[in-house]
């Protein structure tokens, strides 16, 4: 059994520092197992969020060697022999303690998105090909890693104007629901700030569920918004109807 060196961020909102730990590595072990080992053997108070340890709940998002990863899905044998592994909290959200960050902003944003709204006389017939677009977005496990790497949120901290990729696909999913009748385009533009995304696709790259956030979610959403606001025919109709 080999021994791995981990350097884990220990601290809180006031600051902190890396602490080094040595952890024996068993076959198939993941970084979350190493963190458990640290809790049980060195520092019982090491804070990390986790639930399922099966890549289904999206709780254990961290930055491992600088890259956003689910700790439960990152295998220890993916590192070079003798490589030091650093584990940090996700950067776009304020640190609470150690690897735990304050992600409550995401829940506030989520609540603002107008819910699914079917017509009153809906017959509830939907075909597989029509639900598949929405089903892709509904795979989201809310790990918030897309939010974490989105440069509008991470580098510019513009949480005041942009809802982030997670919620772009949530709006897109509602908009593409075959039986939804609400128009969220104004919300997408004015409240969620879809125009701020300049399609660098960083979000898509980190998604552990392989959701094509940009191509299948944000770009079609942008197109719908453009259709509403900049399509000459719609513009003319709006003028005539006074809307």
């Amino acid at each position, binding site marked *: 059994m080999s021994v791995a060196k981990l350097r884990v961020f220990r601290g809180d909102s006031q600051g902190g520092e890396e602490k080094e730990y040595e952890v024996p590595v068993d076959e198939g072990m993941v970084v979350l197992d190493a963190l458990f080992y640290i*809790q049980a053997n060195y520092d019982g*108070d090491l804070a990390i969020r986790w639930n399922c340890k099966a890549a289904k709940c999206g709780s254990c998002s961290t930055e491992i060697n600088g890259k956003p990863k689910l700790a439960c899905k990152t295998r220890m044998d993916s590192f070079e022999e003798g490589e030091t592994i650093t584990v940090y909290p996700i950067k776009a959200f304020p640190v609470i303690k150690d690897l735990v960050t304050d992600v409550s902003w995401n829940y506030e944003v989520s609540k603002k998105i107008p819910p699914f709204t079917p017509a009153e006389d809906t017959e509830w017939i939907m075909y597989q090909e029509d639900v598949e677009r929405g089903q892709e977005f509904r795979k989201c496990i809310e790990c918030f890693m897309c939010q974490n790497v989105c440069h509008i949120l991470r580098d510019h901290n513009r949480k005041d104007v942009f809802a982030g990729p997670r919620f772009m696909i949530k709006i897109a999913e509602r908009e593409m629901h075959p039986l939804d009748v609400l128009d969220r385009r104004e919300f997408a533009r004015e409240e969620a700030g879809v125009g701020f995304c300049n399609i660098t696709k960083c979000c898509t790259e980190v998604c552990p569920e392989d959701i094509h956030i940009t191509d299948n979610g944000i770009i079609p959403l942008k197109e719908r918004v453009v259709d509403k606001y900049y399509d000459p025919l719609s513009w003319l109709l709006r003028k005539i109807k006074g809307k």
Partner: protein
Amino acid sequence: MEKYETHTHDVIVIGAGGAGLRAAIESSAKGASTALICKSLLGKAHTVMAEGGVAAALANVDTKDNWETHFKDTMKGGKMLNNWQMALYHAKEAPERVRELEYWGALFDRTKEGRINQRAFGGHTWKRLAHVGDRTGLEMIRTLQEKGIHSGIDVYMECTITHLIKDGDRVVGAFGYWRESGKFVLFRANAIVLATGGVGKAYKYTSNSWEYTGDGHAMAYEAGAELIDMEFIQFHPTGMVWPPSVRGILVTEAVRGEGGILTNSEGERFMERYDPERMELSTRDVVARSIYTEVEQGRGSPHGGAFLDVSHRGADYVKRKLPSMYHQFMEFADIDITKGPMEVFPTTHYVMGGVKVEGDTCSSTVPGLFAAGEVAGGMHGANRLGGNSLSDLLVFGKRAGEGAAAYANGKSHASVSAELVEGYANELREPFNNTQGENPYTIHQDLQDVMQLYIGVFRTEENIQKGIDEIEKLKERAKTLKIEGSVMFNPGWHLCRDLKSMLIVSEALARCALARKESRGAHSRVDFPESDDGTWGKLNSIVAIKDGAMDFVTRPIMEMPDEFSKMFTEDK
């Protein structure tokens, strides 16, 4: 003492998985001021891990299906020990509860006609499980979460409830702490719904998440409520075996539902010997015992399991119908399940036993205290059918929410004794103050080893007794715990109370397992291999606190009226 926050509601719901969310939605809809309290962030509860589907006799695929058949399947699967009334409500109401999710935005897989698709599962006569690939639980929790946040519920995230507070006989509040800050919080309420899920973390190999520490079972027990049939814990036949770090992670029954075949090291399709009629789609208790037996008798796979192969269905089909399984094995075990078999072995999955409730409103034996979902007992009898838990939590989540709101309605809040609260606070802080004591992580690991070894798939009096002796020693050791660090987000400290809950449920499990001298459903006694329908088939096991210790009694099962019992005799 330290300052603490106080919140006042008509109804508080503890636990925000499917049952908790559904209860809170209903309670709020009935006009009660409702709090939903969860240990994790919203939407991370164990329901998120449910895979194969939700059982409801929608009859979209097999048009012959109806509630009567679902009811009979459930009772037979539970070896007739179920609370028949709950099984009846469940079978009748599940279709409407599933359709309701669709009205709230859920996107289930479809039939060609555009209706909710259904798949086959063990013990279900017809194709009955509405599903979304193999991530049905995620779909359900997102749908309920979404409905919940627009239902006027107050959600308290990352808040652990540690004690229920009573005034005389009835519960009037709950006490606990914020995980983040470690500060205490008091909730005053006229009714409390427990929806805290199961107990799997008492075992070493489990498909359950960290939250499954039996909090609700333990708090209800401490508040004087009866727990029913705790010996019945389901070992899901197919958990991952290799590598060690993922041992126990669930391999959905949908693999078998979609045609997966079990074989042993000799290439034999061994289910032919155990249940030639239903084969791989036999009930979970039977399949789990069969795999266990094959391995015990030396016909196991290289890492001590059975082979489960679905690759004959073709790569596209497998990836479409079982996407999570494909990724799970690819990423954790370097195995491509579209090309070859998986290795599987039973893993601790679900507790059939729980807080004894009555079926109408899910009220427990303590006034004002309700329970729904896995924490409640009775519905599944001696063995739960796959897919019946997701429908259970919808049907009884709604009923509990309704019941709690009706109970709370018009009651005024009782005062909560400050002395009592101070006592709880001191008890919780103790591990910080102890200069000497045990590491909670060590005791937890020891408990997991004990439960795995002595209260497993097959049981004997000698082993169970050893288990009880070991649990008693662990209880002693756990009296003095010591932890490091501050009160802020301190997992070691959090484990101290969780550990106490796990010890209570482990003892309940062991004591009930010792008492039931027969084999029935998930409870397999090597020393009593037959079912004893004349005696034990008519008795529920009950534990409750008596003079500070765990007291075991039996109670006759609820008698089924002729109108329903004849449904079973007609079959014979």
